[in-house]
């Protein structure tokens, strides 16, 4: 019963899919193909991302994180957060647990926003594809503007958010 409750949303969605299969088989078909592709991607990329997070949790001490991307890390911390974000991985939502864990360990809010921004928008394979389809000029300009925006958003958010606003992933787990 607990499990059914925990998986309430997916169960409801599965029922929706079934209903749709009767009423609008064409939409249901398209939806199923998209969902299946996402499931495949997730099954492939999710385990390594979470194991990396586990290794980070166990091996990297708080002081190290604080020193690298904490409140006194300055430009170096920004650069390091950016680099971590550009690691070749999956879509943005896969970065949330890792970001939560880093914040937990004392990372600066602005650096986490930069990390998430880089993860979302600044990936080398993604930039190559963008250049191919939309041109170098478009890609370069969007890259520069996005990077600037992410840094500004990070600095603004840092002023608005207190550490108590952030839930702790591992403590709330129990």
């Amino acid at each position: 019963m607990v499990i059914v409750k925990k998986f309430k949303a997916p169960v409801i969605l599965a029922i929706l899919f079934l209903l749709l299969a009767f009423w609008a088989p064409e939409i249901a078909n398209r939806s199923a193909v998209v969902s299946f592709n996402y499931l495949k991607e997730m099954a492939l990329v999710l385990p390594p991302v979470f194991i990396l997070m586990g290794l980070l949790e166990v091996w990297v001490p708080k002081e190290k994180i604080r020193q690298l991307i904490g409140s006194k890390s300055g430009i170096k911390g920004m650069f390091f957060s950016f680099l971590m974000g550009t690691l070749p991985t999956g879509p943005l939502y896969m970065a949330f647990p890792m970001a939560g864990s880093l914040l937990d360990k004392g990372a600066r809010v602005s650096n986490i926003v930069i990390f998430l921004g880089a993860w979302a928008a600044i990936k080398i394979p993604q930039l190559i594809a963008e250049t191919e389809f939309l041109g170098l000029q478009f890609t370069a300009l969007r890259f520069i503007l996005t990077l600037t925006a992410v840094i500004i958003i990070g600095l603004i958010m840092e002023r608005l958010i207190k550490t108590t606003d952030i839930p702790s992933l591992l403590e709330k787990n129990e």
Partner: protein
Amino acid sequence: MTTIVIYALLAVLLALSIIKDRQKTRQAMMVAVKAIWKMAPGLLAIIGVVGLILGILPPETIEQLVGAEAGFTATATAALIGAITLIPALISFPLAASLLRSGATIATIAAFITTLVMVGFVTAPLEIKALGKKFTLLRNGFSLLAALLIALMMGVIL
């Protein structure tokens, strides 16, 4: 390609971890399993919702919605569609290119791509779980705003 890189990276780090301390490696795996279990319902829900949205709103429909029109309405619509959908980069760039060919402005496709990668309505519940309501609201709100600004600036410059 990216999957190979991340698995290679993981293999090296995992090997190092096992050599240095088996107990700690076990602990790391436990952290990973627990986190996956915690996120599983949200992740499955995302898969379902994204499928439904793209089933109802396939690329052809998106093209009809923002294709031929110009002006701020089209740009705002594109930003909104980018914010609520979750399309992999490999599909979104060709889609953006075909939008451009069918008459969309530079600003419109810039808005679409930028919100697509930076703003996530569907993934918000997951983000809230990991980073809190305030963080999620602010990050997505500012990103949406930034996407519109970036789009307008790109429209002017290019």
